[in-house]
């Protein structure tokens, strides 16, 4: 009971931290905008320069929203996968979703060199990447679900996900081999991830998928807890393992698939945040873990984006470089300090 109260306090603290990091993230960027003007823009009051208001409301705010959605969504999918496979190395992409997405995107950028120029024509639409990426993820998802219906053993799904990743990587490398440098560069840049190119309509669509994924995850909390004890035990508690597995895979796909479609394959967050949270809040109960991971993912992503923007300089860095540079040392430090690995 005492612990319950502690956990609730921790969650409240994390939520407040999300709000503050979001404000911090919105107020910093390449262009220095005084804090007063940032707040005025957000509250719809008079702003000194119209450009500033535009930057805040139409660039930084959707970017911060995207950071919150991607960070929290990937962190939750990472947690789901780690629990489902009872494997601390699992992350949101173990099912091969990002590999599927990367194949779709590689076809858009580099298919022209293999399949002729009609391919390049599709590329001019801003939605082409999102659609290609989603189709690629869906393809892999169906294959995984087909497999999961046939398979009794959850671990086999892990292997199948890995196999898909190798398969798609091989096809991508063939495409890359025949591509001119400029197309290859575009593909590589996509693989670095990007939070800042979403308009409000895209953020809207992304948040619908996010909400669906998060709701299914919250609905699976009880089942996740029973899975921790092992599949045999979960069965004896009356959990329907297959249905349960199916729901968890769907939630992960909704989250990781839609995030990859809009922001690219954002690395590291999904794997690291569940571990960070477990080290800070030593609970194995998903009632605490799921919301904590949602907040933690949002905070880490916002911080990473703030650093990637290199406030005050005209240049900015790709987000994927930053997630690991910031995240990895933190995880290492926590593990070394605690000397105990909570999983």
């Amino acid at each position: 009971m005492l612990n319950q109260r502690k956990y609730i306090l921790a969650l409240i603290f994390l939520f407040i931290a999300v709000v503050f990091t979001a404000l911090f993230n919105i107020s910093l960027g390449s262009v220095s905008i005084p804090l007063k003007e940032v707040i005025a823009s957000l509250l719809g009051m008079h702003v000194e320069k119209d450009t500033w208001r535009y930057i805040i409301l139409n660039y930084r705010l959707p970017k911060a929203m995207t950071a919150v959605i991607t960070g929290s969504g990937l962190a939750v999918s990472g947690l789901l996968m780690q629990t489902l496979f009872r494997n601390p190395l699992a992350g949101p992409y173990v099912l091969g979703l990002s590999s599927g997405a990367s194949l779709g995107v590689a076809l858009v950028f580099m298919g022209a060199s293999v399949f002729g120029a009609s391919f390049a024509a599709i590329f001019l639409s801003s939605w082409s990447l999102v659609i290609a990426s989603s189709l690629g993820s869906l393809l892999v998802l169906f294959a995984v679900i087909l497999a999961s219906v046939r398979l009794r053993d959850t671990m086999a799904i892990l292997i199948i996900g890995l196999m898909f990743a190798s398969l798609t990587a091989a096809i991508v490398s063939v495409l890359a081999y025949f591509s001119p440098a400029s197309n290859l560069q575009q593909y590589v840049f996509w693989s670095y991830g990007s939070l800042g190119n979403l308009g409000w309509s895209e953020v809207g669509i992304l948040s619908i998928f996010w909400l669906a994924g998060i709701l299914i995850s919250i609905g699976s909390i009880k089942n996740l807890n029973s899975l921790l004890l092992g599949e045999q035990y979960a069965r004896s508690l009356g959990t329907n393992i297959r249905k349960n597995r199916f729901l968890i895979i769907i939630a992960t796909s909704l989250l990781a698939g839609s995030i990859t479609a809009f922001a690219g394959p954002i690395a590291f967050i999904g794997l690291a945040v569940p571990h960070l949270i477990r080290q800070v809040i030593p609970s194995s109960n998903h009632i605490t873990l799921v919301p904590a991971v949602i907040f933690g993912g949002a905070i880490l992503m916002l911080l990473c984006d703030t650093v990637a923007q290199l406030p005050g300089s005209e240049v900015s860095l790709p987000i994927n470089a930053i997630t690991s540079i910031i995240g990895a040392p933190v995880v290492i430090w926590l593990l070394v300090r605690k000397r105990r690995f909570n999983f």
Partner: protein
Amino acid sequence: MKKLYFIFFIAIICSCKDQKSANHALKAEGKKVNIENAEGFSIEKFEGYSILKVKTPWPEAEKPLTYLLADENAEIPENIEYDEKIQVPVESIVVTSTTHIPALEALNEESSLVGFPGLNYVSSTKTRKLISEGKIAELGQNENLNTEVLINTNPDLVVGFAINGANKALVTVKKTGIPVIYNGDWTEQSPLGKAEWIKFFGALFGKEKKAAEIFNTIKKDYLKAREVAATSTNRPTVITGSMFKDQWYMPYGNSWQAQFFKDANANYLYSETKGNGSLSLSFESVLNKAEDADFWISSGQFTSYEQLLDQSPHYQQFKAVRDKNVYSVSLSKGETGGILFYELGPQRPDLVLKDLISIFHPKLLENYEPVFYKPLQ
């Protein structure tokens, strides 16, 4: 301490001496061909042969490449060191970059071309005709040449280029006895310097005089256009490049593109920057600096305002977009989709400059029809 200085001084003197004596080893009776603007190559003519030196075949190249261009039955002194010997005039050739094609056409040598990697990128009409007649073999792509097909076309010479260090496929070709030489036109930074590489091809085909005439005409026209541009009192502001995701890629102020803006009497907002490659800037900093720029000379793939705003609605915030002052090279394409500017632009800086002047100062060049830069629809 003084002693040390003395030793140091002597060492410097000696090292200078060494270099001088090494240069003497070459026979000093050649006549240097006049190269006015290009930094990347030199030609020295001797009796029956000439020495073509490519100084920077690729950026950061450690040493220049020396090519011996010899007439048939010419007597070559024994002490000459070279990387490759080529018998001139060359009768059949393989080139690997579209930027080489206009030089061949200008010298009336397009029919010497027997193979090219990536035929679809070629836009020049005379060469396109030869391609459709099946006279030019498809060799795959530059970084990954189809060596078998290349060897089968059996050219007298392959003119390659390399991004950094020798191209693997070309090394293989060289082993079969087909001479390979590297062209470094793309490392040249000045507009006229790039155009002067026609003299490189002139030397290969024994058409030095013709190449010099062509270059002189281009240079004269370029300088004249620059003078005309300078008469304008109005100096519009301009940006270039385009966004990918939320990063805006913008050429540096010392780049080839930026020099055209300067010569066209326009104020390129990033003219103070220096570097290789291109700047990658965050969208908000470009908006902050350039929202009021008069013109945007885009390098994007879009050909209409609809496509442009579909790529990113943020573009609407720029005055150049609102006033419909966006121009792009993507509207002048060859029949197979290659963009004409990337092929012909380096060879014809006079046309590039006139295009830009007609955009920035429409009153100065009336009735001029732009070749590369067209307004978005």
